[in-house]
């Protein structure tokens, strides 16, 4: 059986599994809609009587947060949770006794698990954003759009790999929540989730440029707003590619080390 078909079967099984939890899917969407409406209301209120705040016009600021959010939901992963569960509850044993490596199995499984909620999140975001399109900045040129799409695709891979690494910590300790929380906060800060990174000191902006997080929110949003050039975008793609190589090597090393410690408990 060709490899792609094998991946497809795994993807398909977990995609279907995602459909089982309909109330969860609806619940998350309600939360997302509320958050987006709060962003619009909050920044509309802050901009009352002002044209420019911290170098951003009202359309720029609202576009920054709404698009940034959209990019954020497109590149998220919760692989850490399922990997952690596999290791701590012994589910890993069922996979590692099969002739496909766990690392090869993870990608189709996690894409299968996440694709439906992600697609629904993107649709929800677009449904909220579209009625307010008059408040937003117009689409940039095709070149910028293509760079943003490539940047988000690489950011998604980075997100997966970081999740793998955190999940693998379970080989040593079952407590991955705290580490995930710390990295989550760092990620939100350095991705520009709380506020545009351009408001930070230059040193921190430079540092964030070398870290992998800003490419899932701040950088693509700045590219969209025309505050960064195509050259900046291409440089960002290069940095992302380098991170993917580093993280992949770290994932392989950590899995190899962790696998030696695995005891297959609960079986």
């Amino acid at each position, binding site marked *: *059986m060709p490899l792609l*078909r*094998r*991946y*497809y*079967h*795994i993807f*398909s*099984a*977990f995609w*279907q*599994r995602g459909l*089982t*939890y309909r109330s969860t899917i609806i619940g998350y969407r309600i939360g997302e809609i509320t958050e987006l409406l709060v962003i619009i209301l909050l920044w509309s209120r802050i901009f009352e009587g002002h044209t420019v705040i911290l170098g951003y016009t009202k359309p720029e600021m609202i576009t920054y947060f709404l698009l940034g959010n959209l990019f954020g939901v497109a590149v998220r992963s919760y692989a850490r949770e399922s990997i952690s569960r596999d290791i701590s509850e*012994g*589910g890993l*044993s*069922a*996979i*590692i*006794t*099969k*002739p*496909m*490596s766990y690392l090869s*199995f993870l990608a189709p499984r996690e894409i299968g698990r996440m694709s439906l909620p992600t697609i629904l999140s993107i649709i929800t975001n677009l449904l909220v954003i579209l009625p307010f399109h008059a408040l937003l900045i117009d689409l940039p040129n095709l070149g910028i759009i293509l760079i943003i799409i490539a940047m988000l695709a690489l950011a998604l891979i980075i997100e997966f790999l970081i999740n793998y690494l955190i999940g693998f910590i379970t080989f040593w300790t079952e407590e991955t929540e705290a580490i995930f929380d710390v990295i989550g906060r760092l990620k939100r800060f350095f991705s520009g989730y709380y506020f545009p990174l351009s408001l930070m000191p230059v040193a921190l902006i430079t540092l964030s440029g070398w870290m992998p997080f800003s490419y899932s929110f701040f950088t693509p949003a700045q590219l969209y707003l025309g505050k960064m050039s195509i050259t900046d975008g291409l440089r960002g793609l290069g940095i992302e590619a380098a991170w993917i190589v580093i993280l992949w090597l770290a994932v392989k090393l950590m899995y190899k080390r962790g696998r*030696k410690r*695995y*005891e*297959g408990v*609960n*079986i």
Partner: protein
Amino acid sequence: MEPVIIVKNLVKQYAFYRKEPGIKGSIKALFYRKKEFRDAVKDINFSIERGELVGFLGPNGAGKTTTLKILSCIVERSGGSANVLGYDPGRRQPEYKSRFAIVMGQKDQLIGTLPCFESFKMVQALYGISDKVFTENLEELVTLLDVRDLLDIQVRKLSLGQRMKCELIAALLHKPEVLFLDEPTIGLDVVAQKSIREFIKHYNQKNKTTIILTSHYMEDIEELCKRVIIIDKGSIIYDGQLSDLIKKHAPYKLLKVTFTQDITREQLAGLGEISEFQPYAATLRVRREEATKTAAMLLNAGLPVDDLLIDEVEVDDVIRTIFNEKR
């Protein structure tokens, strides 16, 4: 015949930490924890030939499951060697994984929220089974285990017995040559246990699959395994025919008698050791070679015998005796 499983001086150690009791102990453990090692498997040796169905017996924590985990690539051994079908399980080669399967009675391998057919399709993908072989094998297994009506029902809605049948199908779709069954009947009712046992027996005979079975239910072992390996505290304490084990460790038989009228203990004096007594029934333990003679004496002793049965000692009791002797 060439053995397909060869285990030599196999060792597995697990690391663990001790913590002193109370809050003080917890705080101390934050800074210093003493690492200790426990031998789960100590220097064990055995070999199994193609098509054999061997029972692996022992109390909880004896090392049975750990041995199966080593042979099925789940955990790494700490020492010794293992060879299954010519492969070293420690190398975790995909070619080896395509030729064995493990079923863990206490761990579901199927996706609970989906119908089992979807899990079977995933198993097909994981093993790279062609559509033709998949359809043929599935058809055969579904018929044998009589689960055709269950294929489109969510796994979590199935009973334990039905689920175990589906677990067996998932494990056998790629026709493994070696099968490790870890407590396949645990928690099942007697009807489901019987049905699983019959299937394992049939499958082993038909396909000459080499099977190692661990079970706490002696009926499983008695009905399926001619040979047993008994393991305790990580070491093998018996490896041989089940019938020899009974002869060696239970040199007596049981005479089970029921009476038409109540009798007294004294009336049975001198016939054998009374292991159970009620006024209308009794069980006597007598030496194997004296069983027939004692039965005749009982019938001629003028007692109101209604029925008499010469029975083997329960295997469970034999095993318990062995473990008690070792302690």
